[in-house]
């Protein structure tokens, strides 16, 4: 998160010249301090990533030695309906999840800003985010059950037909997306709320004097000036959203009828249920590339947006 937040631009003169390097005596100490972070990065990120690329070029079932197969896994992947289906479902999930989450979080943030600054409200709003994903999944699995679920009981009170939610192949992905929206929107709202606090109050006052109503204030002042924060939040939450796994693993396990076999779950199944490590790694590499492209696109938007307030 901190890496994508662009620092406010400083006047040129204040920036230290590139040639002004560390005095050589300081270097060993600097390396010493960098070592723990560097070791962590190398051991837990760099090595597995490189190894992942290598595994994706092999046929390996964990138990026998990997066999080099070149690009076979990638060729197979491109012809695999289930892979494309997984990508399509994941995209559907991301659109529903990010779309609803962003709109709702924005609404909550603006309401908090305009109506109450109460710390209690702010605290309450992030409570769902404090509940672990798996717990949310288990609780909603019971609440949304077709026969014994509380939600269907409520629907029944209003004379509505009971719904299967997780158990229906058309409803399952929207259900998972909205459950996670519920969990994350408070946290996202808090980020937006913090962003709104950075907008100078004088702008609102000036606009109000000019006769702007709440809606105009939101559209003409809040929304444009919040853009840098919003893009940052979007970058982070879209990456997170693509990695949907736990809710699926707990509630639907990819079913019914493949309707929730999102890409992460498919990778997991291939790797740890069917033990096609090579094929799973190839899909992971594909996902990695997709996320890089998405992130680069969004970073470009971020840079374009960072001059708005100044």
């Amino acid at each position, binding site marked *: 998160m901190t890496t994508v937040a662009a620092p406010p631009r400083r006047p040129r003169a204040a920036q230290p010249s590139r040639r002004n390097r560390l005095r050589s005596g300081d270097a060993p100490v600097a390396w010493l301090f960098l070592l723990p972070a560097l070791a962590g990065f190398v051991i837990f990120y760099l090595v597995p990533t490189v190894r992942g690329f290598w595994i994706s070029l092999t046929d390996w*079932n*964990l*138990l*026998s030695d990997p066999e080099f197969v070149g690009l076979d896994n990638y060729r197979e992947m491109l012809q695999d309906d289930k892979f494309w289906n997984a990508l399509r479902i994941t995209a559907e999930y991301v659109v529903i999840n990010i779309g609803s989450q962003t709109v709702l979080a924005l609404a909550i943030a603006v309401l908090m800003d305009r109506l109450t600054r109460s710390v209690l409200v702010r605290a309450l709003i992030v409570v769902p985010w404090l509940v672990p994903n798996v717990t949310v999944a288990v609780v909603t*699995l*019971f609440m949304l*059950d*077709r*026969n*014994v679920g509380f939600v269907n009981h409520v629907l029944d009170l209003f004379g509505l037909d*009971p719904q*299967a939610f*997780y*158990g*229906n*192949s058309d409803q399952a992905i929207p259900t998972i997306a909205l459950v996670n929206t519920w969990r994350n929107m408070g946290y996202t709202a808090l980020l937006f709320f913090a962003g709104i606090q950075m907008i100078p109050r004088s702008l609102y006052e000036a606009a109000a004097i000019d006769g702007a109503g709440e809606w105009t204030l939101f559209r003409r002042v809040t929304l444009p000036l919040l853009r840098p924060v919003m893009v940052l939040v979007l970058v982070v939450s879209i990456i997170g959203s693509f990695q949907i796994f736990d809710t699926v693993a707990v*509630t*639907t396990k*990819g*079913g*019914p*009828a*493949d309707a929730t076999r999102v890409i992460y779950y498919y990778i997991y*199944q291939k790797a*740890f*249920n*069917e*033990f*096609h490590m090579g094929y799973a790694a190839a899909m992971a590499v594909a996902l990695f590339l997709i996320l890089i492209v998405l992130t680069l696109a969004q970073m470009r938007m971020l840079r374009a947006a960072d001059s708005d307030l100044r």
Partner: protein
Amino acid sequence: MNRKLGALLALAVTLTACGTTNEPTGDSGQAAEKVTLTYSLWDPNQLPAYQECANAFTASTGIQVKITQQGWEDYWNGLTTSLVSGTAPDVITNHVAYYPELAANNQLLDIQPYVDKDKVDLSQYTGDLASLWVKDGKRYGLPQDWDTIALVYNVKDITDAGVDPAGLDDLTWNPADGGTFGALVRKLTVDENGKRGDEPGFDKTKVKIYGWGLEQGGGVVGQTQWSWMPLSMGFQYLDKNPFGTDYKLDDPRLAQALTWWQDQMKAGYVMPREEAGKLGLEPMMQTNKAALVPDGSWRINTWAQSTQQKFAFAPLPQGPEGRKTIINGLAPSITAGTKHPDQAWEWVKFLGSSACQDLVAKKAVVFPAIKTAAATALEAHKSKGVDVSAFTEIAANPANLAYYPITGSANEINTNAQAVIDEIQEFKVVPADALKQLDERVASILK
């Protein structure tokens, strides 16, 4: 305040430090002298029975057995990773759907030399169970139990429908009109106005009790769900079993059977898959949302000991080609990485002997593989007032038995098949077309 906190923290740190340094020294000294085998299983209901076996085994040999239990999914996911990391149990409870791949990857010990040396009598086991564990001339397990399928019904629902329970022993079925089984399912279905499925005015959108329950899952085999229907028409899963290379999923008999099944769902006699919910078969039957369901003998006690409803068992219906059940059994396998292969064999031999299987039989949990022990189990059930002959009589005639289909890549095949079964249950596909496509996909997996 701050100082107190600091002191507490310091205390906590010292305590945890002590905890970690002190613990391991406790029992490692003893373990080095005596052999302790680890044995894993997934069914918590069977744990007490096998713990008794382990106690008897330790008493006679001095070899300790530590039993670990994990749920079905965790069990299999954890097994492979533990094999890779070298922490696998010495002896595992194995399933025919999983052992071929483990054997192909040289993770299981061939016990044929031990069987020859100790002259284990393989004819003491029910049917062909022993031969299921032979692949390429190597043997990977001794049968420990077997299971078959029968109908479980809610006694009150049957009497309410005016059906004589004795008549349930001679049900018939065919894919054209469903035979007397089809008629029974219609009769057992009741809507909210009290109209039965075979009465005019029956409202299939407001069913209170479904005549036929639905267990989700089942994959390519549909062991409890639907296997008995196509099998009773002469359908066979594979070109040869075990280790066939061609799944016969495009067999028209399979499509006919599953089409009839789908028709019953459309007509409102089978609990819809949506309504079956995610919570499983047990709540469905316990809350009497369904009157009858085919189920496996491993769950006899779940139904027999129910306090909410009274359940009883009836044999599977007779199909066009007779009565057919899948028979399957578990066996203990020795992992190739064990440090104590000889002791592990002693334990496997004990599990496969009547000394252990008689103990298991008395617990009346599963049917032990040894014929005489199975008879003991039947008696044990009878003494509890439970008639389980619906599961045992069918097993007495080899013509009734279809062995669980055994191939490699079972997991991948099941995942693909399950998606199709789901779609059939959601009326999104025509069974014949979907099964044909599935047949091609499975063929490419097995290639």
